[in-house]
């Protein structure tokens, strides 16, 4: 082909998306809510932050990297457990909560060496078994007292309003940082690599992508997010019970939020989290049947509306608030 015949390609400059600015303003406004509203509102918003955080993390893992895990409660539970242990060792509660989350993400490193070799269903099941194994191990710790569990009593040292607000700010900061961080990752090379691996792992390797390394980074980031969520949950619930903190219901919640809101889009899971929050508000928690119902709705979406609410909206209207794709100029 003639050298001169090649077209010259120019790349359009990247513009800051308006949705990004809206998100920054929204977080800033959320940050001042405790100064304006009462305790119940703050508590509810803390819960909402945990849901959004969990949904975004599961979408990063499953929607973008194809790592369908049903055992993220392993990191959720371990985060809380490590925080308890660190408080026991003398750390003040809030630093202990954050450090506990990082310790839990640290556990994701050795786990990734073994589990990321597995694919699809095998990986999913192995993650679930891992979560159960951690739950049983943690129950051996005298501090946890088996099924009974324990409480983060050190938090009672804080005046209740201050505690509620601090927990909320940690939740908001974690949610905002992890969401922005995942978006940043997804718009970069590693984001393209993750999506390629999700679509065809061997083909991804054939174009030079170190698939193990990419999967490991995503896995550890998602573990950190889930662990932060677990620590925030501990701070707001105060009690730690292996059956709850390592419970499979967290996976059901994540599945519901991501599949209903829209897998593989950045906006979908956030919408799913808002919806799930509303569902929780209206129906409360009705135990096993409620969980089964959530699961059934999630499966129905996976079967009949696999792109979720946001995906359907996007294909009908063409709107895209937080695009992660790269366009050919």
């Amino acid at each position, binding site marked *: *082909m003639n050298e001169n015949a*090649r*077209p010259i*390609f120019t*790349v359009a400059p990247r513009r800051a998306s308006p949705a990004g600015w809206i998100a920054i303003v929204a977080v800033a406004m959320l940050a001042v809510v405790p100064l304006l509203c009462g305790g119940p509102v703050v508590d509810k918003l803390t819960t909402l932050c945990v849901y959004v955080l969990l949904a975004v993390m599961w979408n990063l893992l499953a929607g973008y990297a194809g790592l369908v895990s049903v055992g993220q409660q392993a990191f959720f539970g371990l985060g809380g457990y490590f925080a308890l242990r660190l408080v026991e060792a003398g750390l003040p509660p809030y630093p202990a909560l954050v450090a506990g989350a990082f310790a839990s993400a640290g556990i994701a490193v050795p786990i990734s060496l073994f589990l990321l070799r597995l694919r699809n269903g095998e990986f999913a099941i192995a993650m679930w078994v891992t979560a159960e194994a951690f739950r049983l191990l943690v129950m051996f710790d005298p501090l946890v007292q088996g099924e009974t569990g324990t409480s983060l009593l050190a938090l009672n040292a804080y005046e209740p309003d201050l505690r509620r607000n601090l927990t909320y700010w940690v939740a908001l900061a974690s949610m905002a940082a992890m969401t922005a961080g995942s978006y940043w990752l997804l718009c970069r*090379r590693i984001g*393209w*690599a993750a*999506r*390629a691996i*999700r*679509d*065809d792992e*061997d*083909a*991804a*390797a*054939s*174009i*030079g*992508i*170190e*698939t193990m390394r990419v999967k490991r980074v995503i896995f550890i980031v998602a573990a950190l997010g889930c662990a932060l969520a677990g620590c925030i949950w501990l701070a707001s619930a105060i009690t730690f019970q292996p059956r709850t903190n390592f419970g499979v219901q967290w996976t059901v919640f994540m599945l519901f939020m991501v599949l209903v809101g829209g897998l*593989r889009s950045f906006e979908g899971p956030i919408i799913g989290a808002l919806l799930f929050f509303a569902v929780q508000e209206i129906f409360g928690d009705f135990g096993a049947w409620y969980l089964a119902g959530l699961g059934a709705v999630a499966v129905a979406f996976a079967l009949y509306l696999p792109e979720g609410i946001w995906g359907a909206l996007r294909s009908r209207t063409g709107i895209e608030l937080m695009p992660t*794709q*790269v*366009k*050919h*100029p």
Partner: protein
Amino acid sequence: MPVAILEGTSLSKRFGALRVLRSVSLSVAAGEILGVVGPNGAGKTTLFGVLAGALRPTEGRVLLNGDDVTAANAARRCRLGIARTHQVPRPFLGMSVFENVLAAAAFGGGLAGQAAQEGAAEALHRSGLVDCANRPAASLGLLDRKRLELARALATRPRVLLLDEIGGGLTEAELDVLVGLVRDLKQDGMTIVWIEHILHALLRAIDRLVCMAEGGVIAEGEPRAVMADETVMRAYLGGVA
């Protein structure tokens, strides 16, 4: 004797009890176009898998520029300069055509930023896919998916390009374009190994031909001489002893 850029020495591959490659030795000289033919099931695609690092050989070694790369995984071999297309296309279905190729330019090609985008655009241009750049890969038909395989491999800026039956299904005019492209790539200094059943197109592009049957090389050398070889004729009639 020109330097071998890619070499396989006594490569064997077994899938359980099935011996698919039986001590295949193959040497590709820098800058040549080597054709590979052979009946279905001869082990041609498996040989590519072993050369590109997707499959571990049961025995034997793979050398790139004289360096042993047998232990290197597929990703590393790609970055070292071996690219392959898949006989059955394996596009990243959840990404656009452009993103498929961009990932190849960024990882296999080691390009960043604007250079990666330009590398991807050029690979699309050469493969005749530039008009589909922003379409989802899932919307492509089989022929365009084969072109995407080619574009992705080219975007990794290979030194050795392994083409696995990319000519199937093309019209005569399209085959002419493909043969022209392969010759251009050779002009650019690329080494190419091309598995193809469409002989008349293959023979217009290649310098040397290897014929495989039942997991072994049964003939190699000057293309027309290989095709005229008696063992080769018998293999194609389905009756190799």
